[in-house]
């Protein structure tokens, strides 16, 4: 982990409910330092871009060979030669640069990106990540750039709901889904709480509409506070 935590003690936001997807994206955006080089994973993480101020100086990387990626393309801006990692047409900002795939992943693997934001099926308290494969016997495996992103960025932020649809926690003592990376996640942003994770276990930074006590009851991991 490279980015320091601003909070000095754990805060329970009890005067509100869980974060909406949009609020969650805003929370992640809040914690990305000005001028960072950032990769936003496919799906929900792309929403973070909408909350990065124009004056943040944050530069977006897309694995398919670009720094300086702009917002999604609209109408006549759509150019089939210019897409993001999710193959969605995007725009180019002034000062952008294009490069080929080996150079793009060298940039990731070499630790040059400051932050990568990914979705997840499960994260362990130690920072292991599972986000590429449900492990279902008939599932077709498809990894894309997930493993490269997981081990590459200086900070890997995960963005997810804290509980699966069946109510089971997705922040777990040990991932039961196939791993994407070992000990790679530094923060887990969820609708119910923000956690630091890693070799020292999980630390709660903030909760949203849930007390530490409730969190402690519903998770199977030891929780530390700031």
């Amino acid at each position, binding site marked *: 982990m490279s980015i320091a935590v601003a909070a000095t003690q754990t805060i329970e936001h009890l005067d509100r409910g869980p974060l909406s997807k949009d609020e969650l994206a805003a929370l992640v955006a809040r914690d990305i330092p000005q001028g960072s080089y950032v990769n936003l994973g496919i799906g929900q993480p792309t929403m973070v871009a909408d909350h990065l101020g124009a004056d943040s100086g944050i530069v977006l990387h897309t694995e398919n060979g670009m720094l300086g990626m702009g917002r999604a393309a609209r109408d006549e801006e759509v150019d089939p*030669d210019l897409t993001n990692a999710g*193959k969605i047409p995007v725009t180019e900002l002034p000062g952008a640069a294009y490069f*080929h795939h080996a150079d793009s992943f060298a940039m990731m693997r070499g630790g040059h990106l400051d932050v990568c934001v990914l979705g997840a099926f499960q994260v362990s308290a130690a920072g292991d990540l599972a986000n590429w494969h449900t492990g279902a016997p008939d599932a077709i495996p498809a*990894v894309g750039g997930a493993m490269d992103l997981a081990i590459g960025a200086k900070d890997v932020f995960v963005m997810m709901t804290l509980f699966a649809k069946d109510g089971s926690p997705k922040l777990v003592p040990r991932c039961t889904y196939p791993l994407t990376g070992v000990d790679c996640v530094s923060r887990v942003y969820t609708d119910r709480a923000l956690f630091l994770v890693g070799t020292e276990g999980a630390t709660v930074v903030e909760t949203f509409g849930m007390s530490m006590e409730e969190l402690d009851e519903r998770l199977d991991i030891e929780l530390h506070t700031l």
Partner: protein
Amino acid sequence: MSRAHIVTSPAEAVAGIEDGSTVLVGGFGMAGMPVTLIDALIEQGASDLTIVSNNAGNGDTGLAALLAAGRVRKVICSFPRQHDSYVFDGLYRSGKLELEVVPQGNLAERMRAAGAGIGAFYCPTGVGTPLAEGKEQRTIDGRDYVLEYPIRGDYALIGAQTADPMGNLVYRKTARNFGPVMATAARTTIAEVRETVGLGEIDPEAVVTPGIYVDRILDLSALASQEVAS
């Protein structure tokens, strides 16, 4: 000897691709996908192919059509499963297609190694995951790595924006993706380009793929004019 030839038909571009070849196919989704060359390869008839590409075909055209025609024995890719990858999905589920899933960066780096004469390399990606199972591992300076080997192509089919008579290529925006790496990793590289320009008309500082890596060039704009004329 090895100078690039500008060919005049898709058939000429893919001539000689043998059954059993390993073919690297550029593109990330449709960006940079050499659609005309893939169609020509289907027409040409080579079978028992190993295809190395980021994806494994969409809908019913391009790579999906090549798969549907039963020409492919094995796919090496990072992301076969997509919302419209039903051709691949069906063949894979019925056991008619071998699949090697490779993390996207390893796919690129393994081809880069092939082109760069590197015998193998220790890579941190995938350590501790199912994709590293059975692979040699080593701890270097306290970090764990997996040993990865080069992926060489007999042929590379790539798409680019512009070629000059030397075979120098430039690409356009994120359609660059795998093209420059694959061009270095194949014995014979075949590029479809949107236009060709005269010698000296590509800025030497801006060349992305030097002509040394390009064997055959199919100019799609010339092809379109031919079709209009005929």
